[in-house]
C-alpha cells in the first residue's frame, strides 16, 4: 500500500506471505531474506504522524499511526521476523514461513493501526494465521490448535462486542486512551487480556506453542501476547486491576515452569511470567512504568526468541523436547548452549544483558509510587525467574546427566540467527541508551550503579545457590500439571458424560409415556373405526331410511308440541 511514497510494512509482509507458496525454492529463500530486512528499514524511516487515512461508513480509518509507542513495537516485530526467517530456512514445510509472514505482518499492522476497526481486522488475521502455524507442527498439534483457535475466537468475539459498543458510544473509531466509565471498555479489556494470556485463559500459551514445529514456536512467541501488551499500554495505562493480574501471572508462570518437564513448555510458562511483569508496569502506569513495560516487551521478544531458537535447535537436532530425555548437550552443541545461556541470563535480568536495563525500570516505578508489597513481590519474582528459566532451562537441557544423545550444532543459518540475537541482547545491556531513546517518554533512569549491580548479583547468585541445593526436589518427572484449561478439556467432558446418561434416561422415560398414550389412542380408534368396529361397518340402505324416518318423526312431534 502506497500513499505519498509511504509503504505499509505490515501489509507488504502479508502480501509477500501470500505470494511465497507460488514461488520456486530459490526465489522463496531470497524473499525470506530480503523482505523482512526491507520492512525493518521501512519501519525505521516511517515519519511520525497519521498516514493512510480512509473514510469507511462515516468512520475514519488510519492504517499507519506512527509515534514512539507504535514504532518501537513495529521495530522489534520486524527484527523478530528478520532473524526468525533466517532461523527457519531449513524448515521443509513451505506453508509455515508464508503463514508466519502473514502473522507477523498482521501483528505489525495491528500495532500501527490508529483505529479500532482496522486493528480488529488485523487482530483476527493474527488469530487465524497463528493457528495455521500451530497446525504445521507435531501430530497432536491439530487438537491443541483447535483449542487455541476456540479461545482466541472467543476472545475476539468479546473484543468485538466491546469495540462495537464503545465505538457507537463515542461515535468515533479512533483508538487512544480508553475511557473506563462504561461496560464496553471492560469487555474490550477482557478480550485483550485473553490474548495476553491472563488467567483464567493462560493455558493456551503452554498448550499450543509447544506443539508447533521447532521453528514455528519461535514465530509464535513474539506477536500475539505482545500485541495485547501494546494495546494495554495504549488504552489502559494506570488501571490498578492490571497490577494484580500481572503479579498473579508472574507467579503462575514461575510455579508451573518449576513443575514442567517439556523444555519448550517451560519457556512458554516463562512468557506468561514475563508478560506479567509488563502488565504490572502498565497497571502502575506512570511514565517510567510505561517506559519499563514497553522496553521490557522489546527486550523480551528478542531473548525469548533466542531461548526458543536454542530449544528449537535442540529439538531439530535430537528430536526430543523433554528434560527427562535430554542432558549433557554442552559437549556436542556448544554454540547452542552458549546462546541459550545468554538468553537465559537476559531473561533473568543479569547485569550487562537486556533484561537488566528494562525490568529494573518497572521495579523502580513501584518504588516511586510507594507500592511496597508490589516491589518486594517483583523482587521475589526476579529471583524466581532465574530459578525457573535462567538456570532450569540450560541446566536440564545442556548439563545434568549425559543422555548420550548423538548431536551437533545446527546448520550455519540457525547459528547465525542465534548468535545475532545474543549479540543484540548484550549490546542492549551494555548500551541501554540506544533502547531508551526509542521509548515513549524521556528516560530519567540510570540502571548501572554499583549499588544496583551488586544488589542484582547477590539476588541472582543466591537464587542459583538455592537451585543447586534443592536440586533433588527439582528432579524432572514424566508429568504434566493441571491448569485452568482442565475445566474445558476434562471437566466439560465429565459433565457431558454425566448428563448424557441422565438425559438419555429421562428422554426415554418421557418417550415411553407418550408412546403408550399414542398406542392407546390408535387402538381405540381401530376398535371403533377398524374393519370390525361399530363405526367402520357398512350399513344396509333400509337401516338408513329407517333412522331418517325416526329422526324426521321426532322432529315433527317436537314441532307440534
Amino acid at each position, binding site marked *: 500500500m502506497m500513499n505519498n511514497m509511504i509503504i505499509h510494512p505490515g501489509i507488504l509482509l502479508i502480501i509477500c506471505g501470500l505470494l511465497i507458496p507460488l514461488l520456486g525454492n530459490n526465489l522463496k529463500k531470497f524473499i525470506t531474506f530480503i523482505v523482512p530486512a526491507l520492512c525493518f528499514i521501512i519501519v525505521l524511516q516511517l515519519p511520525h504522524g497519521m498516514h493512510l487515512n480512509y473514510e469507511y461508513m462515516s468512520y475514519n480509518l488510519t492504517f499507519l499511526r506512527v509515534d514512539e509507542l507504535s514504532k518501537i513495537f513495529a521495530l522489534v516485530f520486524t527484527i523478530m521476523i528478520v532473524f526468525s526467517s533466517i532461523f527457519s530456512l531449513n524448515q521443509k514445510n513451505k506453508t509455515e514461513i508464508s503463514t508466519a509472514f502473514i502473522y507477523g505482518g498482521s501483528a505489525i499492522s495491528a500495532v500501527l493501526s490508529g483505529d479500532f476497526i482496522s486493528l480488529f481486522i488485523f487482530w483476527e488475521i493474527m488469530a487465524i494465521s497463528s493457528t495455521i502455524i500451530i497446525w504445521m507442527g507435531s501430530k497432536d498439534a491439530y487438537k491443541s490448535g483447535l483449542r487455541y483457535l476456540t479461545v482466541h475466537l472467543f476472545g475476539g468475539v468479546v473484543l468485538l462486542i466491546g469495540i462495537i459498543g464503545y465505538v457507537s458510544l463515542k461515535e468515533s473509531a479512533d483508538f487512544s486512551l480508553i475511557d473506563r466509565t462504561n461496560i464496553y471498555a471492560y469487555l474490550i479489556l477482557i478480550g485483550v487480556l485473553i490474548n495476553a494470556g491472563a488467567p483464567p485463559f493462560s493455558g493456551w500459551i503452554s498448550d499450543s506453542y509447544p506443539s508447533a514445529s521447532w521453528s514455528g514456536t519461535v514465530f509464535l512467541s513474539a506477536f500475539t501476547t505482545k500485541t495485547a501488551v501494546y494495546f494495554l499500554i495504549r488504552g489502559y495505562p494506570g488501571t490498578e486491576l492490571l497490577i494484580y493480574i500481572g503479579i498473579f501471572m508472574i507467579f503462575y508462570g514461575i510455579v508451573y515452569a518449576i513443575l514442567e518437564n517439556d523444555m519448550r513448555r517451560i519457556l512458554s510458562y516463562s512468557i506468561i511470567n514475563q508478560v506479567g511483569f509488563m502488565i504490572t508496569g502498565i497497571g502502575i502506569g506512570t511514565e517510567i512504568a510505561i517506559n519499563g513495560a514497553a522496553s521490557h516487551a522489546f527486550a523480551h521478544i528478542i531473548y525469548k526468541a533466542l531461548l526458543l531458537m536454542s530449544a528449537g535447535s535442540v529439538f531439530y537436532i535430537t528430536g526430543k523436547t523433554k528434560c527427562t530425555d535430554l542432558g549433557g548437550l554442552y559437549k556436542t552443541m556448544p554454540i547452542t548452549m552458549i546462546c541459550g545461556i545468554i538468553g537465559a541470563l537476559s531473561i533473568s535480568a543479569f547485569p550487562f544483558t537486556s533484561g537488566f536495563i528494562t525490568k529494573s525500570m518497572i521495579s523502580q516505578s513501584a518504588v516511586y509510587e510507594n507500592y511496597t508489597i508490589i516491589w518486594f513481590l517483583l523482587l*521475589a519474582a526476579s529471583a524466581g525467574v532465574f530459578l525457573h528459566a535462567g538456570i532450569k532451562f540450560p541446566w536440564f537441557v545442556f548439563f545434568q546427566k549425559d543422555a548420550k544423545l548423538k548431536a551437533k550444532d545446527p546448520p550455519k543459518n540457525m547459528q547465525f540467527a542465534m548468535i545475532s540475537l545474543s549479540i543484540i541482547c548484550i549490546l542492549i545491556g551494555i548500551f541501554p541508551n540506544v533502547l531508551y531513546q526509542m521509548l515513549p517518554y524521556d528516560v530519567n533512569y540510570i540502571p548501572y550503579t554499583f549499588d544496583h549491580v551488586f544488589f542484582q548479583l547477590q539476588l541472582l547468585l543466591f*537464587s542459583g545457590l538455592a537451585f543447586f541445593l534443592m536440586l533433588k526436589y527439582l528432579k524432572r518427572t514424566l508429568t504434566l500439571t493441571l491448569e485452568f484449561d482442565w475445566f474445558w478439556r476434562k471437566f466439560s467432558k465429565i459433565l457431558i458424560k454425566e448428563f448424557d446418561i441422565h438425559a438419555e434416561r429421562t428422554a426415554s422415560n418421557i418417550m415411553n409415556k407418550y408412546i403408550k398414550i399414542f398406542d392407546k389412542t390408535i387402538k381405540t380408534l381401530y376398535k371403533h373405526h377398524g374393519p370390525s368396529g361399530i363405526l367402520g361397518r357398512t350399513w344396509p340402505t333400509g337401516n338408513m331410511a329407517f333412522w331418517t324416518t325416526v329422526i324426521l318423526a321426532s322432529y315433527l312431534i317436537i314441532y307440534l308440541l
Partner: protein
Amino acid sequence: MLSKISKRTIWIIFISLLIITVSGDFFIHRHSNFGIDGYFGFPALFGFLCCIFLIILSKILGLFLKRQDNYYDE
C-alpha cells in the same frame, strides 16, 4: 557427567563468587527504598529464601495438580 574434580572446582568458584558479591556490601553503601532492603546481605538472603519458598510451594501444588503426561490422551 562433569567429572568429580571439575565439579568441585565449579563449586569453589561459585561459592567464592557468592562471598565476593555479599562482601561488596562492606564497601558499597546500598541505599534503601523501604528500610529493610538496605540491610547487609538483604538481597542474598531474600533471593535465597524466596527460591526455597517457591520450590516448596510448587512441590505442594504439584502434589495436587500433577498428572501423568498422557492424562489428556484417549
